[in-house]
């Protein structure tokens, strides 16, 4: 296949990936319903005691009895997800801004597009890789 065509296909695939995740929906349990959340609609996932909390782009929070590590494995084939911190798995397609969380720059935080008020953390250990993803390096 000519190089140009391959590049175009890659670009198309990347664009499609932006639109929808290649993975199945994530399920969460409420009192009487099993709710399906599309991975592309997730802003970030964090931990809370023995549960994880999924924050979607509409600002809803969904609890799931699971570990962040298991969720990371489940979502590893979706390029939008990045383990930014021990307690955060973020959708970097949904990130709006990155900023220093303290004066020394030991803590970095991200804000998201959509209706999300909460911020997620980026550890110094993962900062370099995250900057690469966001084309800052």
């Amino acid at each position, binding site marked *: 296949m000519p190089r140009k065509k391959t590049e175009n296909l890659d670009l198309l695939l990347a664009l499609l990936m932006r639109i*929808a995740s290649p993975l*199945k929906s994530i*399920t969460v349990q409420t*009192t*009487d319903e*099993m709710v399906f959340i599309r991975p592309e609609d997730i802003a970030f996932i964090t931990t809370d005691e023995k*549960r994880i909390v999924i924050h979607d782009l509409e600002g809803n929070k969904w609890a799931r009895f699971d570990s962040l590590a298991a969720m990371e494995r489940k979502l590893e084939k979706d390029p939008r997800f990045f383990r930014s911190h021990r307690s955060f798995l973020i959708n970097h397609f949904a990130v709006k801004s990155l900023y220093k969380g303290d004066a020394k720059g030991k803590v970095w935080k991200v804000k998201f597009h959509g209706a999300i008020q909460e911020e997620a953390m980026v550890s110094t250990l993962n900062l370099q890789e995250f900057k690469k993803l966001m084309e800052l390096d």
Partner: protein
Amino acid sequence: MQVGSITHKLKTGKPVSLVTDNGFLFSNTSELIAFRSDNKKAICSIGDKKYTAVKSYNDMRKLVSSLPGWFHTASGLRVNLNHIASVIAKNDKEYTLVSHNGLKFDLNKAFYEKVQKYYDVKTLQHVTPYSLPQYWMMKLGIRKIEKNIMYMKIPELFKEFSTDAGDTIVVTDLIVNFLYQQVEYIRKSDEGSPIAGGNVRSLWYLIKPTLSRLDLLDATNHYKTLSSVLGKMVEHRILSYMEFELYEYGLWNVGLYNPHIIFLAEKRSHFQFLQQVQDHAGVTIFATEGQPSTMTCEYFCEAFKKKVPEYWKHDRIIIINLMDYDPHGYMILDTFIDNLRVFGIKHPTEIKLSIPENYTDLELEFQHINLEKEDDDDVGNTILNKWMKKTEGINGNKWGMEVDVMMLDRPRVKELFLAAAESWFKIQPPVQRKIWEEVYRIIG
């Protein structure tokens, strides 16, 4: 690649023409939520509106047959799962699919498997893995009820909480959902609990008028129903007494120096002695006053875990106890240890002080209780025999000892306690700060 999701997001699909009052509407399959058969016609749902398709139901069925996300879910019904937000399991045969805009569609058992495979889940009954509280919430029939139960009209209450025949209210169902609704209100509110400082009765007074309107206050004592249901919900970690901010007056105090050692007594009258020991050794003290209440244990465990946050890593929890040497005393201790486990304090080591070895021969001979002759409804022969098997009573006789006999000689009990705790102390007594001495000095 989830092609269905992409077409859904891009709002592209195969074209579909729909009939309107004065002409036609041109849409596509990705915008359709579902269509059902009606006299060979296809009635399509788009948003919250319904239209008849120009094509017949059969033709529409063929049109979507190869499209990802479209499924046959019930007789004469095709649903686009890309529009489905959730599923409700009515039982293990009937399910309801709920769209993002709240429309509901049947999913019958015959079509269940394909839908389950599409979502790639083990079951549509519940999420896996799921927590025990979630399991119990489903088991107890807890559901999301929009309207405040206290302000529901009688027909609404019957619609929500009656038996299948619709003529009798299921009181436990009403109370379980009332309690869950109340705790959900508290969780979402910034104001805290409206019954802060109250007790379980305060919750009862909130639901009593509703039960009165339903004429349900005559026959059964439903205060008991409420407190037992509440206890069950707490035990299954669905909610906690602390969330209601109920007043708790338990006789306990977490120690400053050796909090991992719990000195436990069965009787209220021994609490002052426990306080003296706490002042001397800095241990945790607790008087159960008979069967310990779940609420007291919850408050105690929360305070205890704050003081000894990682006990499972560093400290063994030791319960040195002053219980009657009889089946009752043993049952109280078992309940206490069970309650600790419910609230996250597991595998304690327990050391009993009131055992025959710690009494004098004279005390055993003259102060024992003949358990066979004791009139106790709670302790039948089976329980007594089990206890005998475990302890051998006193010299093989079905005899017990009231701990009060030992408590007549308090220096001896203190000595026994210190000997039992000696190898577990992190800070050797006497400790520096004597809390109760300070308290009594202040209050005179």
